[in-house]
């Protein structure tokens, strides 16, 4: 176990390298540049490839090429860059390509607030690219979680062969705090195909809807990877309604059918809670403080911290509804995830949206007042 005081962006880099990331392409952007800089420094020392590309789009596309080249690949960005990367995210989802995209959220829209934090990209993370597809998105609230969840993001990318988004934010990215970094982390290696090249059907779902395995290029599999809707062999089928529908349904259900496996939440003081704060990312920190202060006042409050935001942990929220009378949802945006909460709650308990825009995080007092 190694202890260090580092910032969240460095924790992402350490997590990525520990998880086996050996390719990174990026483009400078505040507040994510430290990730790109540290990758430039560290990857070559692990015999990994670092590229600074000409733009954000080229960065994700180079990473996608590298994924089929056989590497675990990653790119990192913030707000406007995340928008530019959306076409690559869609291609990755459509082609079952594992890739990790780190978005260190800043205030938007447009150029917005480069040096301030926000959680305004949560819906872009889920819906940003055109068409029907699903992603997995993780939301760290501390530097430790930035490390842990980056490792997890790479592992999930391999398991699900899907784009996985680490939704960090400027506060997590630039906060320096103590982390514990284990000597060894659990790593999911790239799954190779079981069958020989002659028998290999690249896009045929097998057990639980997962594909068989992913060959790298030039290993004899002669695989066609096409961003146009295709059949199980990779051959274009955008003009065939049945096959097109099957593919889109498969790539969506690959995630939604496993939503329960993808639940990652932390429950604080929820056992007897009457009021629960539902938070993710940075606002989870003042939320816990507010809950403790409420307890000191004799209010039975608790907190649900969501660490995997997409797919949304509906089952957890559903159960919580039967126990509490009020949910408080602080977010550093105009109020986005709260709509998902309201959808699951369906009027059973009171839901208080606590949006905060402008770049600053909620104070514990602001959350406490909503609890009271």
């Amino acid at each position: 176990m190694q202890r260090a005081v580092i910032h969240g962006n460095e924790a992402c880099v350490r997590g990525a390298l520990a998880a086996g990331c050996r390719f990174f392409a990026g483009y400078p952007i505040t507040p994510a540049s430290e990730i790109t800089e540290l990758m430039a420094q560290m990857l070559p020392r692990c015999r990994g490839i670092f590229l600074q590309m000409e733009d954000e789009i080229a960065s994700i596309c180079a990473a996608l090429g590298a994924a089929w080249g056989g590497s675990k690949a990653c790119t990192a960005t913030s707000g406007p860059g995340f928008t530019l990367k959306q076409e690559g995210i869609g291609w990755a989802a459509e082609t079952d390509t594992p890739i990790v995209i780190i978005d260190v959220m800043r205030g938007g829209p447009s150029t917005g607030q480069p040096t301030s934090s926000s959680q305004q990209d949560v819906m872009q993370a889920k819906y940003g690219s055109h068409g029907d597809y699903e992603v997995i998105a993780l939301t760290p609230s501390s530097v430790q979680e930035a490390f842990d969840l980056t490792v997890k993001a790479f592992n999930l990318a391999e398991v699900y062969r899907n784009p996985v988004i680490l939704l960090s934010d400027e506060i997590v990215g630039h906060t320096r705090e103590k982390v514990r970094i284990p000597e060894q982390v659990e790593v999911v290696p790239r799954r190779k195909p079981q069958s020989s090249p002659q028998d290999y059907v690249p896009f045929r779902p097998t057990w639980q809807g997962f594909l068989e395995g992913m060959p790298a290029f030039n290993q004899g599999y002669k695989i066609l990877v096409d961003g146009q809707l295709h059949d199980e062999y990779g051959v274009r089928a955008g003009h065939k309604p049945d096959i097109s529908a099957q593919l889109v349904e498969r790539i969506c259900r690959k995630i939604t059918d496993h939503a329960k496996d993808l639940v990652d939440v932390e429950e604080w003081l929820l056992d007897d809670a009457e009021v629960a704060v539902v938070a993710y990312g940075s606002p989870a920190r003042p939320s816990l403080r507010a809950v403790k202060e409420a307890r000191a006042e004799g209010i039975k409050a608790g907190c649900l911290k969501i660490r995997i935001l997409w797919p949304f942990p509906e089952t957890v929220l559903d159960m919580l509804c039967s126990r509490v009378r009020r949910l408080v949802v602080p977010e550093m945006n105009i109020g986005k995830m709260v709509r998902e909460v309201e959808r699951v709650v369906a009027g059973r308990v009171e839901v208080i949206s606590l949006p905060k825009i402008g770049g600053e995080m909620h104070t514990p007092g602001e959350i406490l007042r909503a609890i009271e």
Partner: protein
Amino acid sequence: MHPLAEKYLRKAGLPLIFCPGCGDGTVLNVFLRAVEEMGIFEELALVGGIGCSGWLPTYLKADVLHVLHGRAIPFAIGLKVTDPRRRVVVFTGDGDCVGIGGNHFIHGARRNIDLTVIMMNNGIYGMTGGQVAPTTPLRGRTQTSPYGNIEFPFDVCDLARAAGATYVARWTAAHPRQLLRAIKEGIEHRGFSFIEVVSQCPTQAGRYLEGTNDPAELLALMKKRAIFADQAKRVSSQDVAGRIVVGTLHHLRGKREFSEALYESFPAEKKDPFTAGKAEAGEK
């Protein structure tokens, strides 16, 4: 079926999407002959952009990425640097390469990364119905320049050379033998190779820009317009105007290649700098 087609084509993808008389079929034919003569089929990693020409590699029984509009070169870079032994060939069109993908094109050339970029130039957006392209001649009438094109076209070979490409050649679909040699030279060349193939498009460019949809007439027109590079140097610029300058336009050997330089730039220290785990990617 032709023996080369029998050997190398992904038959499930047939028939080809190309219109009858399209020049892209010639490029497919010539490319297969080139890789057959070179004996390098197993080393190929192919990338297709979006547009008619981007479909070309999908018909080959090779490892193929068919990617996003304009982004073929960044994808190809990812493939090349993860294993520089790969022979990465990009198939693209004029709109894909220097319209939406122009930035990636000049930066790929600037890096002198060992890719072979084959750009089929029909001077129009063909697949979408014949709209004006960055290569459409001045005054050309298309669906989106109905009163005549007021923009100047790119000379993409000049652009490639200026940006840093180290092998640049231009031929037309009416020059299959010369094109065969150029493709072999381009693949053999260690560095950014750019081959422009001026390609007839009977359905769109032929009808709207040339006034004929007859492939034979269009081929004859290209042959007539073609002027060899060494000959073009000897005549006045007025005599070159409107002609297609063909030949090997630039061949610079010995300039540092990107993927090689990348691996050479690794520091000697091999240890994981963060000592945060000894995990390796599953495949290497």
